């Protein structure tokens, strides 16, 4: 994965080490004092702080040097706003932070000042799934008296050697903004291209080669569960800097240019070494077809190349050479894509890098190209004309490149031919020989992912339910169970995922036996088989027995049961179709007195159907829940809330059994 920006440890680090700036009292600068007493932007009682003023001045000195001055000042309103008294700035081996200073103007008393020498530098320790080694660090400075009622502010300068001639002004965050300025100073002859996203365009003022934009009274964004990713909703200004004569490998104004930039980084990295060629031959020698050869290579790269990210400098975007990856048997996502591409080439199959984000909702054709959109690298594999197989479903017909299979060499749980949900219907940048092309990846049919659960159960007159359950998990549903079981460190703990699943629905149960099928055979459906006994499942009510026909599984959600109206769309992780079938043998001496009504709820984004029937002495419950559209817009959120309530009601509905003849 590419480097994530993680600031979460910063506050903890400062607290843990107890670093406190030394005594250097001084007045806050005039630009901060001018903010005392200003009218605050609109906010509610849950707002931790408001951004009174921010300023970002970007001075492009050359294609290799950009200086950026940053100033911000917050009014802290609540205890949670104390975190704005921690100044944080990221840097790496190609950039440095200088002149960091912070001030506090307390509601009463003298100002405080802290300086660069009081700052702390941190980098992340080893975290599973993140970079093992990275040169990204954070510089932190703690401002004294960062308490409610006080104004805190800071400034610093960043001097960088940019990888790309582009800057992003993210002026909208979780806090309301009173006023925010963005200034670009370009060398003579340079031009810029500015694109506004998720916010009405503000016209700039221009003086010579200096351009300035100002926004004011920007609303804060309050995070919601299952909302689109931040860049898909927050106000941003993307500015590309264009030197005379074009970007010279450092800038891009369209997706084609960005593809070219990436292609330049990847050039020569896929060249196979003799050892790679030898391994390809060994892996494919017994494969009768081209498809079998591709599958063998995919299995090798997914399984045998360990995920390890070492990202220094441009290494966040540039893969290591394939021979190096092969020798070490480790690499990050772009390394794995590189090696896979190299190996495919050796069997005569061409492939192309795809830059993508693991969260849908960022990059789109109507949005400007920028490297910040993407955090993952996968492959588009050109399928030979004679390779046609029903297992190959994640396929795109590209007008230039032909029939392409989308494949993620990092995802060891999704087999060659399929694609996990978060990448489906997502936009990826195809890196082609003649530039980039932003392409929407396929959305697979819902039936390819989901849980198919069947239960054959018997109810005793005392209310004990016992029997067998089979869960067949397809697509992402199987992926997550495989991933969970992989982390189990004791044989006896392998039952815990099943216990977790069952405990969501049954208050009293014993798992008598349980087996897992196809744990490692990712091209086969993952399966749980288990037997359970649930005492007191059916409740006695006088002479009646109350039985919930929906024995296991929860499809309802209370995510929309909030006081505040929903602001953003609800995103599903991927298409899915879940089915439950439970057959419960009714105890002798009892017959059905009352059944829950059938449910048929149909919406454009999802559907839910359930039915409880009696056949002989068997109570049969069936239901299907299908996710058809991956995003539910705000205009349809009330329908989704209604659907979740319908499902919740159905999941609690009860059948009533009575003694025969009563």
């Amino acid at each position, binding site marked *: 994965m590419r480097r994530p920006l993680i600031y979460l440890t910063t506050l903890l*680090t400062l607290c843990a080490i107890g670093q406190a700036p030394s005594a250097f009292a001084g007045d806050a600068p005039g630009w901060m004092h001018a903010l005392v007493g200003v009218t605050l932007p609109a906010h509610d009682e849950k707002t931790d702080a408001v951004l009174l003023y921010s300023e970002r001045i970007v001075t492009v000195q050359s294609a290799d040097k950009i200086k950026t001055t940053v100033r911000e000042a917050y009014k802290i309103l609540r205890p949670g706003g104390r975190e704005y008294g921690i100044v944080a700035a990221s840097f790496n081996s190609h950039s440095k932070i200088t002149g960091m200073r912070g001030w506090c103007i307390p509601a009463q008393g003298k100002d405080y000042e802290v300086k660069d020498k009081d700052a702390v530098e941190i*980098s992340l320790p080893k975290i599973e799934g993140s970079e093992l080694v990275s040169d990204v660090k954070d510089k932190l400075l703690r401002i004294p008296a960062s308490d409610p009622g006080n104004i805190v502010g800071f400034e610093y300068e960043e001097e960088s050697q940019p990888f790309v001639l582009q800057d992003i002004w993210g002026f909208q965050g979780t806090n309301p903004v009173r006023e925010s300025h963005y200034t670009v100073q370009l060398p003579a002859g340079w031009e810029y291209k500015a694109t506004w996203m998720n916010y009405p365009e503000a016209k700039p003022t221009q003086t010579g080669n200096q351009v300035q934009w100002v926004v004011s009274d920007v609303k804060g964004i309050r995070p919601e569960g299952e909302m689109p990713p931040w860049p898909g909703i927050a106000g941003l200004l993307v500015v590309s800097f264009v030197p005379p004569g074009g970007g010279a490998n450092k800038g891009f104004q369209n997706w084609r240019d960005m593809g070219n930039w990436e292609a330049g980084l990847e050039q020569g990295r896929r060249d196979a070494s003799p050892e790679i060629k030898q391994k390809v031959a060994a892996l494919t020698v017994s494969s009768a077809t081209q498809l079998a050869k591709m599958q063998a290579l995919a299995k090798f790269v997914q399984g045998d190349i360990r995920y390890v990210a070492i990202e220094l400098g441009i290494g966040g975007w540039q893969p290591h050479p394939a021979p190096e990856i092969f020798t070490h048997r480790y690499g990050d996502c772009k390394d794995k894509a590189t090696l896979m591409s190299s190996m495919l080439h050796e069997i005569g199959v061409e492939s192309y890098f795809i830059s993508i984000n693991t969260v849908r909702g960022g990059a789109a054709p109507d949005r400007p190209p920028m490297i910040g959109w993407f955090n993952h690298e996968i492959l588009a594999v050109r399928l030979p004309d004679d390779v046609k197989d029903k297992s190959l479903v994640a396929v795109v017909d590209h007008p230039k490149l032909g029939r392409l299979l989308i494949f993620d060499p990092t995802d*060891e749980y999704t087999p060659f031919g399929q694609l996990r949900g978060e990448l489906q219907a997502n936009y990826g940048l195809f890196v082609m020989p003649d530039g980039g092309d932003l392409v929407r990846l396929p959305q697979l049919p819902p039936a390819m992912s989901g849980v198919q659960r069947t239960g054959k159960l018997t109810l005793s007159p005392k209310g004990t339910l016992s029997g067998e359950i089979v869960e067949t998990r397809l697509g992402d549903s199987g992926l997550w169970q495989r991933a969970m079981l992989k982390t189990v460190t004791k*044989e006896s703990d392998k039952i815990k995922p099943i216990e977790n699943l069952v405990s969501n629905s049954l208050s009293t149960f014993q798992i008598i036996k349980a087996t897992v099928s196809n744990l490692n055979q990712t091209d086969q459906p993952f399966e749980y088989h288990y037997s359970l006994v649930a005492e007191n499942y059916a409740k*006695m*009510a006088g002479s009646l027995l109350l039985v919930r026909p929906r024995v296991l599984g929860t499809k309802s959600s209370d995510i929309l049961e909030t006081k505040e109206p929903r602001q953003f769309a609800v995103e599903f992780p991927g298409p899915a179709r879940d089915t439950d079938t439970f057959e419960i043998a009714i105890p002798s001496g009892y017959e059905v007195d009352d059944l*829950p009504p059938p449910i048929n709820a149909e919406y454009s984004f999802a559907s839910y159907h359930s039915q409880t029937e009696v056949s002989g002495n068997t109570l049969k419950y069936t239901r299907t829940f299908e996710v058809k559209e991956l995003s539910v817009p705000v205009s349809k959120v009330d329908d989704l809330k209604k659907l979740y309530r319908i499902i*919740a009601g159905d999941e609690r509905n009860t059948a009533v059994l009575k003694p025969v003849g009563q």
Partner: protein
Amino acid sequence: MNFRRVFLMVVVLMAGAAAQRTPPVSGDDWLPISPEELKMNSVPEAPGAPAVYLYRQVDRDDSRNGHEYNYVRIKILTEEGRKYGDVEIPFFKGEGNVFGIKARTIRPDGSIANFEGKAFDKTIVKAKGLKYQAKTFTLPDVQVGSIIEYRYMMDLAENWVFNSHWILSEELFTKRAKFTLKPNTEFGLRWSWPIGLPPGTNAPEKEGGLIRLETQNVPAFQVEDYMPPENELKYRVDFVYSDNNDEQDTVKFWKKEGKRYNDRVEAFTGRRKAMEQAVAGIVAPNDTPDAKLQKIYDRVQKVRNTSWEASKTEQEAKREKQKDVNNVEDLWKQGYGDSRQLNWLFLALARAAGFEAYSVYISSRNEYFFKPQVMSVSQLNGDVVLVKLNGKDVYCDPAMKFAPFGLLPWPETGVQGLKLDKDGGSWVTTTLPQSSVSQIQRKADMKLTETGSLEGKVSVTFSGLEALQRRIEERNEDDANRKKFLEDQLREYIPVGIDVELTNKPDWGSSASTLVAEYDLKVQGWASGAGKRALVPMGLFGATEKHVFEHANRVHPIYFEYPFEKIDEVTIDLPLAWKVSSLPAAQNQDAKAVLYVMKAEDDKGTLHVTRRLRVDLVMVDPKSYPVLRSFFQVVRSGDDQQVVLQPGTAAVSN
């Protein structure tokens, strides 16, 4: 109260050290690998393990040019185990340095891939006077079946001696491990193994100037819900240096320490006259002893406690110009002190009022359990005051904000403490409040609508430790956050999504024994449909118990922080013409230490449900886990019972 955390006991060696350095690690000193190790694909003692330590070795030398040699050999058994190929060795620059890293991967066929790359220097935290670094590297070609091994030397800072540990229980099963320590000879060293040693392991022995230990088949450490502090479950050997008390006899050791503590307390509190004057302004001559002590307690709780204030930057502290507090008289005049000083003020005032009172140094039980035989003073990390009141022992911690008179915070309850006196003191045990002290009482007056929803008012009364815990947790928050906190509490209690609004202003700031929250509540679709009938579940507040002890297997003892009780009364007015057609049988599970009672009654169109759950336990042996699990299954089953209603005209609709 004083939760002092002693991160590291450091003893400075004043003597100058020669500049002689540790010799570098030599090139190819790998231990031989047996064919069995190469072939191994599982370990019977650790079925399903992702990897195991085949061998670990730690050789530490605490002499002047101290160093520590580490050798690690790991067998990779599953895909998950391959992550152990990524290695990070953290260290504090200034305490030492890591060098001489050698590493290699031995493939299942015995061929070797040497680590020839670079160990990256990672600065995790760099600040004034502090640098926390790590050496990070990853091994090549790590596959299932591979053996990875690495070794390195940690050069310890010159002129310093550090306490150290041998941690025997690690994240992975350990097949064999060897440890040695060459102690520094200029200081007394005491070593102990607080929870014992793995079965079959001999106690550490000192011979020829080296302390040695060998162990084998040490289980991997496992994390479980409701388990005691990790320190109480991990096998380890602790080494503690001391420059002034190398006493080996436990009784004498603590007597000696007790005298030192007592001298400190007496030096601080010995201002009898000033305290008598102070107490005269607090109590009235005709107050009863109870009233006197309570008034003194209340007064001390009002004194500014600097331990509870947010950490200040150096500038803030300097600007505040706080004067030193050297004794109770200073404290009384200046009006502030830290937690320990405030407790000593209470002690001095109580004595001045004529009470027999003692300072008691205690060991709180949230991180480890006190063991006198360990003879480490850092174990006694807090203090309370013992007062004889009407012939009874009353333990007080007035420095604990929000603690009512006579109630200690849970980590200080039921723990051993050293009651100080001039002879070195004696051991006492603090009070453990019964479950009836720490209650959550929930009262709901609800109406059921014809659509099956509940609407009405709820009040929740937290008492004892339940109130204290919440006040401590929310002490730095504002009203909006506290409101959300209490609304979220109710959401946690009710097993379905709710619409809730806190309607009162709870008393967050006092040390009252209760904290009361009142709400308006709506529960959509609480009654479910069953054709012509409607069903209402009994356990409106049963969500907290839904997932307690859901797993059948248990390794560690079960640890509750304190005994507690939940008492619920729910009244539901039914829609007009609706009738109760059936009530579930009452539940009464009384196992003495735990109790669950659930009962529903029909009172002419009004349903009354009462529920009581009591847990009078702190520690439960894992052997009793099935019984405890079974009890909570009964609780859940009882909560799931339903009242059958007969709607007047139409059935309930969802």
